[in-house]
């Protein structure tokens, strides 16, 4: 499990298009994959989310 801060993506207008982390915007560059699980660990800002995620 890794922890990273990502930009937010999604409109949040429906639960099928949630605001969520954009795993293509990590500080170390795009992950290159969508984690099968991730969980917020706080530190949310207007534009970013910090999450714990399962590495591929």
């Amino acid at each position, binding site marked *: 499990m890794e922890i990273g801060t990502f930009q937010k993506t*999604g409109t*949040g*207008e*429906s*639960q*099928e298009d*949630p*605001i*969520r982390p954009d795993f293509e915007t990590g500080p170390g560059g795009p992950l290159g994959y969508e984690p*099968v*699980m*991730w*969980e*917020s*660990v*706080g*530190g*949310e800002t207007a534009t970013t989310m910090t999450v714990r995620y399962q590495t591929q």
Partner: protein
Amino acid sequence: MTYHPLAETHDTGTSYWESLGLLGASTGMAPIITASTTIPAFDGQDGTAMTISDSVAKATTGNAESWAGWNLGATYTKLLIIAYVQPSTGSYMGIGAKVDVIPVGSIKPDAYQTRYADAYGLADLGKYVGTSWTGLASETTILQDSATDAPVWGLAFYLDPTLGSEVLKTFFKAGSSQWFEAMEVTGDTAHTSFQSVYLRHDGASCRYITPIMVWGA
């Protein structure tokens, strides 16, 4: 020695939750809704209607974003919500807690909610702030087919988002399994008190089944 691997946590007792420190005298948690065998009348619902027949609340066939819920009669900062479900042909099924009392129309805004679905291949946990939905956790390795022969699942949602605690947990109980934790969110304090809880579903003949329990403090 006789070993009963499921004796402590298999059924609907409180031992599992007490073992995690989520229930028990030291937690201050007390029963609010105790629907052991009969589901109480809803204080409000929207979308595809649910009809209560003793131990089951069954949705009609329409498929729409829907909810049905109860006011708690007071304001709580910690909740444990448990419900059992059978998806029939529906997709999302979940449970949530709302900052305000149950409204007449939309469940939005301001709630925490957890769900699972097969249609989107995920379980999730998130929040409404205003009318905007933010995902706080996503898990694609545990889901249940929305099928008429799917087993009854247990859903549980623990909320203690008060500053200093800051935790939200989703649990599942698949078929005859023990309860297990599927998602845990820490550090989110968007909502810190709750006055109502609700069942979140998409209609399509899904069923919520007793026991449905809510503890709070």
